[in-house]
């Protein structure tokens, strides 16, 4: 039997005496050879009624979404589903299928896998569609709102930016928004590197002013109501307990222009910039 995975199939790597249960709905638990066989059988025998993606819908012969059907979701490792195929649903005009038992199990595994693919959103692939107008992107790049050319040049630091981002629109757009890297350092407080924190991945500089007027600069590590900690350029960590507003801290983010643009961009601006930069 090939059903390592699928809801209720034999647990992958487990058994009656396994100390911990196996989560069989995770895609890693599937036996892909069974899934692949099931996919081929489905395409040959089932897709003509249920659609190639098994979801049914208005353009298919039957409007049954198999990926949301209890016959699939409540099946355990192909057992119930392969039995079901042997009888079909004559009342709903679904014929029976005289398939070898393993074929029924394989079809069930393919359906279970399709269910899992829709669940695991971290594996979703964004479409690579450049919809913007490169000319308009160039105008924004050099214009009074974007002012990108104040810091950047498409023949200088941005040369090859399309290639670096694999000519993938979502990747390139993320790079445009982020200034080429992830950065923190907003108005919030917190530990360095935390969202809204003072770390800023090296893009944020903290200027600490002591009561005696002395100024110390460095990378913020922790800026809270009670503690100020920075790392100076020579690698030394300096920490002060805070008494009210002292010591005072001013944060400067070298990517501030990118932060400011976040509230100015239209969607078209981002799409146009991406189209413009893609072949640079």
């Amino acid at each position, binding site marked *: 039997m090939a059903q390592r995975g699928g809801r209720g199939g034999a647990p992958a790597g487990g058994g*009656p005496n396994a100390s911990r249960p196996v989560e069989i709905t995770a895609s890693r638990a599937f036996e892909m050879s069974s899934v692949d066989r099931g996919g081929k059988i489905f395409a040959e025998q089932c897709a003509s009624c249920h659609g190639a993606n098994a979801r049914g*819908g208005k353009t298919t012969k039957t409007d049954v979404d198999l990926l949301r059907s209890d016959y699939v979701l409540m099946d355990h490792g192909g057992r119930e589903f392969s039995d079901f195929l042997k009888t079909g649903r004559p009342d709903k005009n679904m014929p029976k299928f005289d398939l070898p038992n393993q074929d029924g199990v394989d079809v069930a595994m393919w359906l279970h896998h399709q269910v899992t693919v829709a669940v695991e959103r971290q594996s979703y692939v964004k479409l690579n569609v450049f919809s913007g107008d490169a000319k308009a992107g160039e105008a924004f790049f050099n214009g009074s709102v974007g002012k990108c050319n104040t810091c950047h040049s498409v023949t200088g630091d941005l040369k090859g930016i399309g290639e670096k981002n694999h000519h993938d629109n979502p990747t390139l757009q993320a790079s445009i928004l982020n200034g080429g890297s992830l950065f923190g350092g907003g108005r919030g407080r917190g530990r360095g590197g935390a969202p809204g924190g003072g770390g800023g991945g090296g893009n944020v500089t903290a200027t600490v002013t002591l009561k005696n007027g002395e100024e110390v600069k460095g990378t913020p590590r922790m800026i809270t*109501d009670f503690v100020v900690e920075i790392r100076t350029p020579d690698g030394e960590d300096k920490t002060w307990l805070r008494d009210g507003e002292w010591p005072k801290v001013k944060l400067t983010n070298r990517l501030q222009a990118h932060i400011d643009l976040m509230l100015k961009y239209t969607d078209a601006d981002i799409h146009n910039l991406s189209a413009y930069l893609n072949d640079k």
Partner: protein
Amino acid sequence: MNLKSLSIAAVALLPVCLSAQFLDPKVLQKPNPVDAWPTYHGDYSGKRYSELTQINKSNVNTLTLAWQFKALATAESATNVGGPWKPGDPTYWGGPTDSYRIAGSPLMVDGVMYISAMDRAWAINARTGEQKWSYFFKTRGGHHNNGSKGMGMYGGWLFFETPDCYLVSLDAKTGKERWYKEMAPVEKDYFCSTAPLVVRNHIFTGVSGDALDNKAWLDARDPETGDVQWRWYTTPQKSGDPGWDTWPDEYSRQHGGAGPWQPLTYDPDLNLIYVTTGNPNPVGASQSRKGDNLFTCSLVALNADTGKLVWYYQMSPHDTHDWDNTEAPVLIDAQWKGKPRKLVVEAARNGYFFVLDRATGEHLLTAPLVDKEFLNWNTGFNDKGQPIPNPKKEPQIDGALVGAGNATNWPPPSFDPQTGLFYVGTNEGMSLSYLVDTSDRPEGYGYSGGFGGNSGGRQGIRAIDLQTGKLKWMHDGGGPQGLLTTAGGLLFGFDGSNSFCAFDAQTGKILWHTWMPVATTNGPQTYLLDGFQFIMVAAQDTVYAYTLNR
């Protein structure tokens, strides 16, 4: 049967055990019972405000740790073990984990604290933190990241929901399992986390699920047997039901989501429960569910005894951003434009602050919850104050830049009637949202969101004027989190870095703080025992209790 006779009937059914570890039903009816914390919010109102004044602005700087309790339980170490999983069984859509956090609000009744976290429960001495019993539920799977929001208590019986969607009842005195009931099949990716609410002889429980486009419901259950008394589906089930025509077809109604996965509030005078619902499904790819999609992302008032819909208000019509409207519906009695009024207030995840009349659902106020320049997802408001979603800000194949980005979330806010301020932890941000599933019948999430950069948005605790929705003060740092106010003029919350703090509720000035090893994970609580006021909060698997230094 009228309300009074129902109450008598409910009391008559209670187990005969009027000694310790028994919740007198009268305590549940009290607003703000200071010597108990008998429900998720401390009382039915959801205000999370205590009349206790022993700890106050003048002495809070002497608050000190009284005890701490590290909540540990495994199948081997727990004093009680139960649940349906047997050796050799697989798990579905998740599995057991040794990493858990106390996200819910423990109950405190008769000097005993009842704690739950995911598949585990404990009873401890609320004076000392000493464990009385522990319970471990052998899970069949389910999403464990949402955890358990806590327990409900009826007489000497406890109730909590597990991630694999079982309702478990324990004997409060011993921690022995009375029974467990399947609420929804974990095979279909249902998961459960809300704290059951007990109203007379009803246990209210809710189910949720996201990725398999399940339909969802709220149940009233019998405390003795766990059987369903009535069920309310969060999407219309038959022609003529309210909201029927806000969906294009039967398929979309039956797969529309809207799980009621957070605790309810209740008005005993109106006998209404206030239910909040989650996002519609498919989550971000909405081409198969044109329309407002009632009752997703809504606040709904139901008759507690029948489940009959009395009124509804949809905070996010046709949501496409996964902004569950499951933030606490807080019940406030206050003057409104010169007249006393029964209000329900919600700071919503979509970035707006709503005030409604809780008897009728009449809309009274919609105001920005966060800085309004981040609220780019709606084109305006209709005549009922509902945001009108901008279709161009739905997920797009080439990306749409959307704010305010999870402006708040389920951790409970607080309202202080002394200051008239509503306190809530908030976020601001902008991110690109992509449509991934372009088929006629998308499934699951169908979109990919959260691809943003730093927008300079603020995270922190906001104090909002109830009457206007305007910001009175803000503490930078903290984000969405559970909060507590007291008549001592104090607001308790987390500063976003390392400190659990007491703020002056009027001004936001920090009056006391204590270092925490990790961020707090539930809403602070308070109670009085033997004349001593305790402040309690949890961080991951540990509960901390504070009293004045003595």
